[in-house]
């Protein structure tokens, strides 16, 4: 579970956050201001401060928020001056935007607010569609506007070049004021705010909707908020039928508001193209006599609070019916409710102002079960004995404020205990304002919270014994400070002093504190007080201990809570509830109190003691007879088998595994499949020590798995079996896997040299390389490699020979390997006990809606009789409707509804349609006269929860990752690791070592465009592929300079867009979008960028180049003797130092493989190889040298047979 935050505001306006991993409310780091309300989402939090201004708190991240500004410089040729800035009168501006219509001089760009800064100066972009231009970056054309080329031709009359400059958002981890002085009507002071809408579109820009309500009851929508513009651009008023008091916006398209009169408004027409929606619908209040005062919405839920503080749940709300059907009264009286992520509900209770969590809210029971108060202390409530002294020194600097603050605290605490009195006396000698003034001082902070009506009620209740006398004047004194006009010195001091966050107010921007003044103040005080040091420290201690207006024992009083950024669900384990001290917290404690090192030490001790005992008791008695004779053990079961001969079909078989001890004491076994053929009993068998891999092929109809041997791999025709239940399949797989590993004497975690691969189903496999694997001239055939499965679900795995292994999930989450093994269905013996964690992954299932045009009704779902299904898969061959489409396997569950997918290659129209002349054809995203059919893609997300030796690397999601390949013996202070974030940022990981493979933080490396693939070579050569398909080389990367200094642009092979790169010791290989494999020629130490691309092969999907420059690929369309397989592991043979391109391919495991990383295998092969049994793995019959030379390059064949891909892609 990722760590996320719950935000809340207490009645004094202080903002706290509570981490899902934490047990304390932490005061917001940058808390100079008091807030009325906050609304949080994952990446940021918005708030209305007591000055009625809106502030934005963006969480810091290793990746900067940066925006690329661009402008074009245009020139025209004339015979006298050549190309010059003198243009024709009809021409565009000399400086313009890309269209030429807008005048955009370089100095016309200004930072949009004070929260931005320029990253560097303007520079010319010398990359033109993936091709580097001449120096100067000019692109030429006949005239404006026309097609530009990078080369100057005889008829080039005009030219232009692109200038770019980056600005960077700098106000992160702090409250940044949203500038209000904009064009158009200035919104009056804001009263409510709600942020959401991130699920409206599957948009990588992370668009957000921000709705606000002004004091006059108007509704405003903040336009243009997205990842690179966190502040948004402008406020737009949204007309309402009445005065609105409060509004709530869900993650999706649900927006509800409360009217002053107590009815509710529902926004309709919100969609991808119209996040503001189009109209309001009025919904009656839960009860006619008492109207609603508060509403909160989620994805599919609406909760409301009526004026009598009762809580209501709206029945029947979904995206088709945003209004729902009726109200249900709920137990509990609340001040407000908030719906957070996963439709979880948070509330502030009426009675004791506690933050409550609604327990038991699940997708099937959205109203939950009961309210449970969150009872954790605030950060400041902890004992500060340790930090008090350190604070005393800080207190010295801010001496003046600390002192007066403590007085204020003393006085505002009406039931001042004897302790506080004593402290107050201690304060008195140093007190700057004379005791007579003390009566006024505490009141100064009361008006500051009057901005919110109920807060002031609460506070004035509390402070009423002080008498109303002093309150009046201080309001006057206070207001100017809040309003921003310079107050007099005394007022200034008090403003500062009475802010609850005294120690955080160092930033002059907010507090307007003249520190010099404060120091003078202190100097005066010290002059008058001889015992200054001691009193000061005691004051400081006392002050900190008291911390707030209420004592430590009192629980905090909350005014507002926002769970929009808090990723919990009903299964989450939170240690926020004191009542659950049972197992939940025990796990926490156990993991805290026993470290992995201790566990390992323990295990070692136990193991040693056991070995010692065995030695003592058995060493001298080995000649004794065993009490129990060893025998053969057979496990049997019923299965179905995909018959080897035509017609292929599933037939019932008896299945048996016979296990026995081999000749050298190792375990071995034989698999039997008993079937009947023409009434004759027959069987098929396979030796366990010949099985190379067991591949689970869970699909929705059968629990199948495939068994491969080298022979079966050559045939591309595995033994396919189906178990009656998923459980039985897992039992068999676990047993067979243990049996295979035993027979090959493989146990424990994979070695550091291991070869990792993944299938398109997300299964992770690992193989132990033998030195003979890269032997020359007769390497071990790679169809003999033994693969075993490791738990987890990943799209790719990258590794190096120091044991640093990272993986990326289908949802782009980054995972680091923990050193364990097993997980998933490997339990008990086949799995390590620690280092196994829960892992989740999310992917989308796609179906297509197809329509044909007819002259009567236009496009409709009435197709021709010959047409494909109107709801189908991508090929159109399978019918896939919204209702009959199931998640990929029982392990997956749906986590969203069907939505139109707009991110289809080729583009779509506004409704997601793609048009074509006929099925099947190439589709385009706009309609032409010739288009008679159209289709659109629907996506639905599903989620898998499994276990494996992986730990999440937070919080940035990744597209690609690469780890420095090196020799297994190299000792590096830091292992270079580069990655591409899911937004295309290039990142360099710091602090990665074999001991802490997860590293510590990301270093952002700037690029001019998003990147998609990256690879680092053994000599710190970093190559990357940009989104435009061209390659980049990063200069000057070294162990000392891990991020390098600049990018060198390298054009792609002609007319090809590259998509992936892999760099070995010296070799650089790339794969383009058409499946071609390219080798980079002419790389020399002095010219590491090389000179040209050489075509090596086609039908390649992925390439991995290892630390010995060995080349492995995932190839499509590999022909076996029985069938053809896509996604096959292939090994380039004949790769030599003088012949880095190799000679031919050797084919390994295949059918559904998607990724391989060879980058950990740095085992040099013995120079001369005489194939013998000794080189093969234990118990394996020796194989004749493979007929390498006869192997053809990757073959093409069009037809595909069903069995070829065990795991179908």
């Amino acid at each position, binding site marked *: 579970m990722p760590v996320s935050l719950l935000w809340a505001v207490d009645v004094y306006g202080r903002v706290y956050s509570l981490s899902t991993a934490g047990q304390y409310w932490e005061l917001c780091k940058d808390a100079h201001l008091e807030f009325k309300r906050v609304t949080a989402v994952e990446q940021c939090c918005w708030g209305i401060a007591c000055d009625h201004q809106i502030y934005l708190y963006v969480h810091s991240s290793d990746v900067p928020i940066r925006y690329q500004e661009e402008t074009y410089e245009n020139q025209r040729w004339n015979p006298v001056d050549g190309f010059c800035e003198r243009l024709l009168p009809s021409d565009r501006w000399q400086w313009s935007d890309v269209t030429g219509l807008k005048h955009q001089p370089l100095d016309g760009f200004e930072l949009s607010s004070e929260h931005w800064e320029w990253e560097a100066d303007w520079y010319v972009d010398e990359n033109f569609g993936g091709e580097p231009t001449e120096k100067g970056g000019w692109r030429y054309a006949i005239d404006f506007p026309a097609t530009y080329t990078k080369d100057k031709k005889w008829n080039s009359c005009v030219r232009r070049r692109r200038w770019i400059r980056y600005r960077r958002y700098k106000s992160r981890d702090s409250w940044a004021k949203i500038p209000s002085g904009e064009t158009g009507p200035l919104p009056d002071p804001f009263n409510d705010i709600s942020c959401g809408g991130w699920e409206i579109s599957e948009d990588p820009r992370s668009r957000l909707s921000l709705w606000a309500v002004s004091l006059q009851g108007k509704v405003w929508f903040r336009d243009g908020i997205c990842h690179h513009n966190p502040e948004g651009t402008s406020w737009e008023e949204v007309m309402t039928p009445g005065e609105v008091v409060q509004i709530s916006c869900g993650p999706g398209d649900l927006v509800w508001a409360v009217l002053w009169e107590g009815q509710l408004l529902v926004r309709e027409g919100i969609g991808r193209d119209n996040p503001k929606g189009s109209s309001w619908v009025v919904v009656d209040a839960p009860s006619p006599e008492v109207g609603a005062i508060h509403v909160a919405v989620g994805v599919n839920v609406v909760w409301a609070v009526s004026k009598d503080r009762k809580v209501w749940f709206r029945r029947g709300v979904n995206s088709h019916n945003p209004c729902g059907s009726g109200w249900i009264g709920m137990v509990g009286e609340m001040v407000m409710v908030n719906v957070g992520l996963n439709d979880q509900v948070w509330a502030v209770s009426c009675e004791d102002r506690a933050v409550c969590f609604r327990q038991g809210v699940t997708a099937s029971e959205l109203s939950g079960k009961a309210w449970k108060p969150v009872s954790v202390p605030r950060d400041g409530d902890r004992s500060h004995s340790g930090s008090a002294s350190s604070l005393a020194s800080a207190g010295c600097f801010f001496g003046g404020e600390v002192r007066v603050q403590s007085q204020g605290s003393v006085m505002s605490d009406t039931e001042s205990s004897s302790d506080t009195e004593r402290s107050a006396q201690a304060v008195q000698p140093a007190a700057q304002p004379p005791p007579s003034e003390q009566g006024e001082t505490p009141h100064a902070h009361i008006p500051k919270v009057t901005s919110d009506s109920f807060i002031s009620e609460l506070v004035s209740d509390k402070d009423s014994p002080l008498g109303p006398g002093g309150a009046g004047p201080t309001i006057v004194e206070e207001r100017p400070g809040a309003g921003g006009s310079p107050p007099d010195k005394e007022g200034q001091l008090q403003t500062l002093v009475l802010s609850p966050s005294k120690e955080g107010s160092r930033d002059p921007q907010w507090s307007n504190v003249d520190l010099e003044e404060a120091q003078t103040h202190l100097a005066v005080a010290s002059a008058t007080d001889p015992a200054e040091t001691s009193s000061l420290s005691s004051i400081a201690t006392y002050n900190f201990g008291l911390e707030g207006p209420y004592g430590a024992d009192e629980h905090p009083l909350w005014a507002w809570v926002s769970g929009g950024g808090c990723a919990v669900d009903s299964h989450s384990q939170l240690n926020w509830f004191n009542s659950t001290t049972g197992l939940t917290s025990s796990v926490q404690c*156990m993991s805290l109190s026993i470290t992995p090192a201790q566990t390992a030490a323990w*295990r070692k001790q136990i*193991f040693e*003691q*056991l070995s010692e005992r065995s030695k003592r008791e058995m060493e001298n008695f080995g000649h004794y007879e065993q009490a129990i004779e060893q025998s053969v053990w057979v496990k049997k079961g019923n299965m179905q088998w995909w018959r080897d001969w035509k017609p292929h079909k599933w037939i019932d078989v008896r299945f048996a595994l016979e296990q026995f001890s081999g000749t050298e004491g190792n375990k071995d076994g034989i698999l039997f499949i008993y079937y009947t053929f023409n009434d004759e009993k027959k069987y098929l068998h396979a030796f366990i020590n010949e099985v190379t891999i067991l591949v689970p092929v869970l699909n929705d109809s059968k629990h199948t798995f495939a068994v491969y041997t080298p022979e079966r791999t050559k045939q591309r025709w595995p033994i396919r079996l189906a178990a009656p239940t998923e459980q039985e399949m897992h039992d068999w797989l676990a047993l067979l896997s243990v049996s295979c590993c035993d027979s090959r004497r493989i*146990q*424990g975690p994979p070695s550091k040299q291991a070869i990792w691969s993944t299938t398109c189903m997300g299964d992770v496999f690992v193989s132990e390389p033998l030195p003979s694997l890269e032997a020359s001239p007769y390497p071990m055939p790679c169809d003999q490699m033994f693969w075993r499965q490791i738990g987890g679900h990943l799209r790719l795995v990258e590794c190096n020979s120091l044991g640093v292994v990272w993986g990326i999930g289908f949802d782009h989450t980054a995972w680091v390997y923990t050193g364990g093994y097993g997980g998933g269905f490997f339990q*008990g013996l086949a799995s390590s006990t620690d280092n196994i964690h829960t892992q989740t992954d999310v992917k989308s299932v796609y179906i297509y809606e197809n329509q044909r045009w007819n002259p009567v009704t236009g496009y409709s779902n009435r197709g021709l009789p010959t047409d494909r299904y109107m709801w189908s898969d991508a090929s159109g061959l399978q019918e896939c409707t919204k209702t009959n489409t199931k998640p990929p396997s029982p392990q997956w569950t749906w986590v969203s509804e069907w939505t139109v997918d707009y991110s289809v290659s080729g583009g779509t129209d506004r409704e997601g349609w793609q048009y074509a002349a006929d099925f099947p054809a190439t589709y385009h995203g706009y309609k032409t006269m010739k288009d008679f059919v159209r289709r659109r893609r629907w996506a639905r997300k599903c989620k898998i929860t499994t276990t494996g030796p992986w730990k999440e690397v937070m919080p940035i999601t990744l597209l690609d990752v690469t780890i420095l390949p090196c020799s297994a013996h190299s000792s590096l202070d830091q292992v270079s690791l580069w990655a591409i974030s899911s937004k295309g940022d290039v990142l360099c990981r710091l602090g990665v070592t074999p001991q802490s493979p997860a590293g510590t933080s990301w270093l952002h490396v700037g690029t001019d465009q998003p990147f998609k693939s990256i690879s680092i070579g053994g000599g710190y050569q970093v190559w990357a592929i940009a989104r435009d398909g061209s390659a980049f080389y990063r200069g000057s990367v070294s162990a000392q300079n891990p991020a390098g200094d600049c990018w060198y642009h390298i054009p792609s092979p002609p007319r090809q867009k590259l998509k992936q790169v892999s760099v070995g010791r010296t070799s650089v290989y790339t794969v383009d979008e058409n499946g071609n494999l390219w080798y980079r020629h002419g790389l020399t130490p002095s010219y590491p960028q090389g000179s040209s691309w050489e075509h090596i092969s086609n039908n390649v999907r992925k390439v991995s180049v290892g630390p010995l420059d060995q080349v492995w690929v995932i190839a499509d369309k590999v022909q076996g003797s029985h069938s053809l397989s896509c996604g096959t592991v292939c090994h380039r043979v004949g790769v030599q130092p003088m012949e880095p391109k190799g000679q031919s391919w050797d084919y390994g495991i295949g059918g559904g493989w998607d990724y391989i990383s060879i980058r950990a295998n740095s085992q040099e092969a013995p120079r001369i190889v005489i194939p013998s049994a000794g080189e093969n793995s234990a118990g394996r019959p020796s194989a004749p040298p493979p007929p390498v030379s006869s192997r053809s390059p990757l073959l093409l064949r069009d037809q595909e047979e069903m069995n070829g891909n065990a795991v179908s892609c």
Partner: protein
Amino acid sequence: MGSQGLCRSAQNCGNGATITRPASERITTQGLLTAPPCASFPAPLYSNNNHIFEKPEEVKHIHSLGRRMADDKDVLRDVWFGRIPTCFTLNQDEVTEREAEPYYLLLPRVSYLTLVTDKVKKHFQKVMKQEDMEEMWLEYEGTALKWHYPIGLLFDLHASNTSLPWSITVHFKNFPEKDILHCPCNSVIEAHFMSSIKEADALKHKGQVINEMQKKDHKQLWMGLQNDKFDQFWAMNRKLMEYPTEEGGFRYIPFRLYQTMSDRPFIQKLFRPVTTDGQPNTLGDLLKEVFPAAVTPDGILDLVFVNMT
């Protein structure tokens, strides 16, 4: 088969932990069937004076080894393949036709005497008349050995201080009806074994796991033990040893604490793997609660050695 030990710490303890008190009175804890009740967290065994953790650099070294070296499977294997070399001698009083040679066997610690002594019986049959042979029973230094205790437990309880091989006397007469149960056939052992498994699972999972198993699964457990098939046994037993990760451990730890010098043959109480405030319980905690006499103020100093079932 009893007891893979008490906690994983007490995987140290085979048939349980044998504690030798100064008075040479012995106590043995027996985990009821199967391994680590404390789940994946080994509980500190020597809670107070564990010097291992005081040397961080050493720990680091161990950690890096830990990944390489082994995991639980090694421990479980060592437990399973624990053998006690035993010398069987025929009781002097038995009537024989010629002198009976002693018989030597390696007995599996996790098994039961009557399950593995067919060979012994056959050996002595050769020198005895059929009519002189009643039900065979075994004795060590005057104590009739209870067949329904696992062999390792019997050894640790009665004979751990003797030199090896363990010398057991074989009787065919005067069956000590008061001390031990009859064992007419293997199905009696099986019934006893299965009932121990069920009892342990009742403590661990309210019996849910064992009840969900099929008859053939039960049979597989038994056959695994009977034929000394580690994989066969553990393929099934692993299900009994699992618990949901979020629960952090079994409901209760199945264990028995055996004593020689007591009226009660063993102590058995409900004991959770973690305390109410979430701390993991250790074997030391268990002993403190269940048998405080075994614990001295300095920790469990009397714990002389711990071995395995």
